[in-house]
């Protein structure tokens, strides 16, 4: 057999333009890494699932908080006022005032609780019945429970409160907003906790992907050594593992979005039923496109970062012997 001496065989190795090489190499490596994922479908799916659950957890809790906030935001405007009349007002005056207030456009309903009824209720509920029997006067005033109309905003509620408070018969008006504010404070804490939790879970994803990539590197140690012997740079041998991390992150992120959407779908009916009980229309806020994209983006980022951390460390360590 003669040595082939055609022009092709003698021509020196010529590389294409650097950008073309770069793009073609990346395309090839990314597809190869994807193929490797699909060749071990079960273990790949497991890892993708773990990443998906880890991403979906903070995302869904965040959604719950977001919905709770919207819901309680509407409560602000639908809170009943307790309007305490001055001590010396008669039940008749209370009733007249109640009727007057009920005619207002921004008021939906007015209930009257007379001093006697209030005392009776207090006796029953407080357990001080006997002690209260000793009282000669009823210390409680007549009270109007005013329910503002649904069309009110926070500002119009304040205005309504002020106007009622200025009426001559009224001693003072109390809106029980304290618990709403407390609820909001709790939501704020929960939101902070989610941020911290999400950071920890993100760390977990980096560790999971890093560990997966480390095993992958160990399994392909021979291949890495051989390619390095043939003149492959660290960047070259690292590339398939970075792509592996990328795919894990991408699929994990997409799967997380699917999990959240499925969860929302399952919640839709019970929430609708609950809303029906309250005769209100409560719609769940779903994932926005930007949020979904953010979940996938975070997945990809964590996947790349986790694999880069591991690959960078191990590639330097594995040298041909």
């Amino acid at each position, binding site marked *: *057999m003669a*040595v*082939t*001496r*055609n022009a*092709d*065989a*003698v021509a*020196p*190795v*010529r*590389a*294409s333009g650097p950008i*073309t*090489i770069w793009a*073609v*190499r990346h395309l*090839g490596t990314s597809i190869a890494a994807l193929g490797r994922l699909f060749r071990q479908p079960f273990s790949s799916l497991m890892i993708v699932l773990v990443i998906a659950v880890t991403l979906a957890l903070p995302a869904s809790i965040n959604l719950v908080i977001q919905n709770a906030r919207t819901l309680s935001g509407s409560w602000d405007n639908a809170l009943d006022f307790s309007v305490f009349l001055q001590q010396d007002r008669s039940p008749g005056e209370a009733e007249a005032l109640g009727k007057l207030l009920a005619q207002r456009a921004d008021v939906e309903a007015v209930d009257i609780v007379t001093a006697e009824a209030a005392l009776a209720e207090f006796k029953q509920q407080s357990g001080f019945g006997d002690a209260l029997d000793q009282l000669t006067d009823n210390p409680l005033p007549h009270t109007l429970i005013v329910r503002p109309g649904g069309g009110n905003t926070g500002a119009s509620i304040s205005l309504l409160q002020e106007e009622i408070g200025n009426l001559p018969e009224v001693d003072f008006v109390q809106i029980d907003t304290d618990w709403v504010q407390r609820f909001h404070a709790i939501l704020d804490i929960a939101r902070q906790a989610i941020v911290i939790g999400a950071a920890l879970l993100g760390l977990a994803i980096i560790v999971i992907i890093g560990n997966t990539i480390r095993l992958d590197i160990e399994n392909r140690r*021979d*291949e890495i*050594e*051989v*390619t*390095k*012997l*043939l*003149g*492959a*740079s*660290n960047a*070259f041998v690292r590339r398939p593992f970075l792509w592996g991390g990328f795919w894990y992150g991408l699929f994990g992120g997409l799967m997380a979005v699917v999990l959240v959407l499925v969860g929302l779908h399952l919640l839709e009916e019970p929430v609708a039923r609950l809303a029906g009980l309250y005769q209100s229309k409560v719609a769940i806020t779903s994932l926005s496109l930007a949020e979904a994209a953010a979940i996938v983006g975070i997945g990809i980022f964590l996947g790349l970062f986790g694999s880069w951390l591991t690959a960078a460390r191990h590639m330097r360590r594995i*040298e*041909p*012997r």
Partner: protein
Amino acid sequence: MIQLENVSKRYPGGQEALSGLDLVVDKGEMVFVTGHSGAGKSTLLRLIALIERPTSGQVIVDNRNTRRVKRRKIPAYRREIGMVFQDHKLLYDRPVADNVALPLIIAGVRHRDALRRVRAALDQVGLLHKEKQNPETLSAGEQQRVGIARAIVTRPKLLIADEPTGNLDPDLSLEVMRIFRRFNEVGVTLLIASHDISLIDRLGCRRIALEEGRLQQEEDDSWL
């Protein structure tokens, strides 16, 4: 092509693989390095491939002092040298053609060009008809020829081989050596470590004998 000046290599633990070795291999030469195992043959090749660094002395390859090749530049340096190993070091998760193509992929050669080169290289070792097979299905001799095709596919000026016939029977060994000889005829410089002295004598090439890391004798076959 290769020039060693007073090269010593001491491994951690104190054993000295090479001590004060001087050596010159000219361009276009085909030289064998012989000696018992542990004589320093492999170490010599590893110094040239920059898998190891010398403890002292200079190793100059193709007018380049390897001492000045920085760690980051080693991959580019290795791409200039063809390497053949006793255990072939093929990758068994891909067909023969992909194994041979590996150095071209690393070098970033265009796919179409790479394919042509791979076929040309396989043709030169007589294995073109097996390009789609997995190396596992090939005999030891064929696997070694795949390894050689991979070493020459980038057209290196220098080819080093560590016991390339170590696992082969005499007929296959001679076949492999004939392939090396043909490369030498088109101008490739070869440095081959081997202990198969009878085979080397049949080829009639220069022989460098190492013993305990030193030059034992140098037989110049200038009569060839």
